[in-house]
């Protein structure tokens, strides 16, 4: 395969980073500095794996953590030239049960949509996260397991989400864990959509 592989639970990406990757890498590094566990999920993961589309938002889940740590994060973000285009980052601690936008100072796109882990699928994404290694800049970011991403995309059920699922499934069909994928498909109740995916 040309420059993208799933090797022993690590997604190895050999292409140069794009604008989305750069923002994700920066944010992930700041979360690591403060010690907040996190995971990138959804459309951004499909794009990281080579899907030929863009998105204005990068979804990232973070573990529930203390107000002190969130305040520390906000100080770090503002110090590094990031801001909250929808609301001041100072309100992050109260807003994370919904979501909060974080972007480069003065910009609205692309932005990160940050929220606390809130259900068992979020928790599974965080607990079973894998590493994406962007080799050209030697950076690592945590992403949700691809098997869960596919099943959840089938559940979301829009054309764009189904196409993301087709992309990831076709690209990694030989390296995905099929038992794990099928477990998620049954748990989420998307058996019919999965059959359709396999026939595509």
């Amino acid at each position, binding site marked *: *395969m*040309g*420059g*993208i592989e799933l090797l022993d639970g690590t997604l190895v990406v*050999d*292409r*140069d*980073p*794009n*604008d*989305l990757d750069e923002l994700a890498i920066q944010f992930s590094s700041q979360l690591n500095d403060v010690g907040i566990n996190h995971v990138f999920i959804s459309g951004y993961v499909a*794009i990281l794996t*080579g*899907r*030929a*589309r*863009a998105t*204005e*938002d990068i979804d990232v889940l973070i573990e529930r953590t203390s107000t002190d740590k969130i305040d520390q994060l906000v100080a770090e973000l503002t110090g590094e030239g990031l801001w909250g*285009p*929808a609301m001041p980052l100072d309100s992050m601690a109260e807003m994370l049960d919904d979501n909060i936008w974080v972007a480069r100072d003065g*910009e*609205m*796109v*692309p932005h990160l*949509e940050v929220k606390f882990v809130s259900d068992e699928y979020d928790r599974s994404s965080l607990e079973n996260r894998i590493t994406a290694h962007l080799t050209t800049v030697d950076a690592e970011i945590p992403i949700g397991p691809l098997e869960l991403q596919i099943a959840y995309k089938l559940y*979301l*059920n*829009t*054309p764009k*989400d189904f*196409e993301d699922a*087709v*992309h990831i499934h*076709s*690209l990694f069909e030989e390296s995905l864990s099929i038992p794990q994928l099928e477990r998620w498909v049954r748990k989420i109740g998307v058996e019919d959509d999965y059959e359709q995916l396999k026939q*595509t």
Partner: protein
Amino acid sequence: MNNSNKRDTLEAKHQQNRNQRLDSIKRWVEFIKTHDVDEWGDQQNRLVDSQLESARQSELDIEHRRQVAKAGREHSRSP
């Protein structure tokens, strides 16, 4: 053409578009699998970065963007 026929025609067109899009995704995956990362990576990055640049240049306000994002989330979880 009655309403039922019109609907059938639209459904057929929709299905044809959907199949074409899925075919193009499979072709792109095949391209990734068979070409050097510099070829597909550069094409993908140009697409991503140019779409973001267009979005940056639009003057849509934050409220509009949030409403669109919220509507998208709600729609995607509809049965």
